[in-house]
């Protein structure tokens, strides 16, 4: 058995009183205890127990603990042949349990092998415990239903509670579209030049508006605030209501970015009122969108759905594809929030497609990031890493610091899932530095993750 690793075990080991991992959750302990009871009951007979664990490092810890309890063979499955050969060989070296680890993707060949050879798991005369990620199991249910129906039981282990992930990046309602950081800096220089030359105050307000947006995207929030306050002042003086609404909206986004939720809500509310008075539907849609984000962030998901829905309807009526993509992205995040992974993936996918058509790189990067979060949440680590890589590259290219920081932070959690603690620590330190530069409230979350990782690295070194 080439792919198998035989682990001698101490049969006299206690059930599970010893700690499995430093970070297991209480409900996981109960579930693991149930698995052990089930393996004991199955002793000497075939059984097929499926077990979902997303983080490979956590899975390996559980396997080590089980291997201390039962004499086990661990079969790492890479392709269908690994399943067929192992089961047909019938040589399990006197193992009490066959522990299988499935790959990240269910290929057609593997689905066929699981379906067609499912009975061999019972014929083996030894119980099988099959570990896979959630995304793999979801695929099994759809594409290898016979194998799924044949299971004796299945368990889901959540892994350690890392607190809220950095997760989704929101699609903000800005009107600025640009190619890369150089493009932004070039536009900044042109606008600064124009601002010096311009005589018309309304034009000055428009220039200040764009300068505010550029500084915001570059992560220079103080500078953005200065430009936008100037815009607001001029717009009020000349009674240019559209300028007032726009500056209030942008100032709301700044307040939101620095965690001043109540102030952000007030500013969006004022902006919305003016946009409604002016009949500026596009402005109304943007404010509703941002208010939806605030509702979502404060846990009012019903209100968030209503606001995104209204914003989407207006964007569709106006033929505003960018607005449609923005709303779909947020509805995707809402679905993700409520655990509807498939629906979230569909909505992000639609949003991504529109952003790609429009050449909206920022929108593309946001959708890719969030699709990465979904892949990570379902244990598809290779796909998550690919998506974060693409997203990070685009954010770096665009000079969008907040996007860079969030993607780095989320990548840190991904590396942690794989047990690559030092790499994870490097990434979260980098992310925390940027969050601090931005004055973002997420800096606190990054610090907590960094401290936890530092402790884990220390524990690891002590064990070594």
């Amino acid at each position: 058995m080439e792919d198998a690793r035989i682990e001698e075990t101490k049969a006299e080991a206690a059930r599970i009183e010893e700690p499995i991992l430093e970070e297991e959750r209480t409900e996981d302990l109960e579930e693991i205890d149930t698995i052990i009871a089930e393996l004991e009951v199955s002793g000497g007979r075939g059984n097929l127990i499926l077990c979902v664990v997303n983080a490979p490092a956590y899975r390996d810890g559980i396997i080590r603990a089980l291997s201390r309890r039962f004499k086990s063979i661990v079969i790492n499955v890479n392709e269908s042949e690994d399943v067929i050969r192992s089961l047909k060989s019938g040589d399990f070296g006197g193992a009490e349990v066959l522990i299988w680890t499935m790959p990240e993707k269910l290929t057609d060949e593997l689905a066929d092998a699981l379906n067609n050879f499912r009975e061999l798991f019972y014929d083996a005369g030894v119980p099988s415990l099959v570990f896979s990620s959630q995304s793999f199991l979801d695929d099994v249910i759809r594409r290898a239903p016979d194998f799924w129906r044949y299971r004796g039981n299945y368990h889901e282990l959540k892994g350690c509670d890392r607190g809220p992930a950095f997760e989704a990046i929101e699609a903000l309602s800005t009107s600025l579209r640009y190619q890369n950081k150089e493009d932004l800096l070039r536009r900044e220089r042109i606008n600064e030049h124009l601002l010096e030359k311009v005589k018309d105050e309304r034009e000055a307000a428009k220039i200040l508006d764009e300068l505010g947006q550029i500084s915001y995207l570059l992560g220079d929030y103080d500078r953005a605030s200065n430009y936008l306050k100037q815009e607001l002042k001029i717009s009020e003086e000349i009674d240019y209501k559209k300028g007032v609404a726009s500056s209030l909206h942008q100032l709301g986004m700044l307040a939101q970015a620095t965690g001043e939720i109540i102030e952000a809500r007030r500013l969006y509310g004022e902006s919305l009122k003016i946009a409604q008075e002016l009949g500026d539907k596009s402005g109304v849609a943007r404010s509703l969108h941002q208010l939806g984000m605030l509702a979502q962030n404060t846990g009012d998901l019903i209100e968030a759905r209503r606001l995104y829905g209204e914003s989407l309807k207006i964007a569709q009526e106006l033929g505003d594809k960018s607005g449609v993509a923005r709303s779909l992205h947020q509805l995707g995040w809402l679905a993700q929030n409520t655990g509807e992974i498939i629906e979230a993936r569909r909505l992000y996918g639609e949003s991504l497609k529109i952003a790609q058509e429009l050449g909206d790189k920022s929108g593309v990067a946001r959708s890719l990031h969030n699709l990465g979060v979904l892949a990570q949440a379902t244990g598809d680590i290779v796909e998550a890493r690919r998506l974060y890589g693409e997203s990070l590259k685009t954010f770096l290219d665009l000079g969008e610091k907040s996007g860079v920081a969030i993607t780095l932070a989320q990548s840190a959690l991904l590396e942690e899932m794989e047990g690559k603690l030092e790499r994870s620590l490097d990434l979260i330190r980098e992310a925390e530095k940027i969050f601090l530069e931005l004055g973002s409230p997420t800096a606190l979350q990054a610090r907590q993750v960094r401290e936890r990782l530092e402790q884990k690295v220390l524990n690891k070194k002590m064990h070594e």
Partner: protein
Amino acid sequence: MRDATIKAYRNKREKIAKEDVESALEKLRRTYDRTLTEAHKRRALAIHESKEARDLDKDDGISRELLFSLTAVEYEDENGRWCDVDPLLLPLVEKWKMQE
């Protein structure tokens, strides 16, 4: 049933308690709810209403997938053959209806 039985055994109970069954059912419901697409859910609702599970054409495999994964099940009695959503998923049917 196996899940509930093993939980009762682990908790050293001689009989399967209602909570053992409920927690096993809830776990299954969660899994099905997570894996079904919107199209699957819409079709499951249609099957629940019509008691029939038919694909629309040869390219449509949704009803077949629901039957294979035991989301929908087929019965045979004195009235002939008919289909419905697996009874364990009926609480989800109410949820899906509200989402429509």
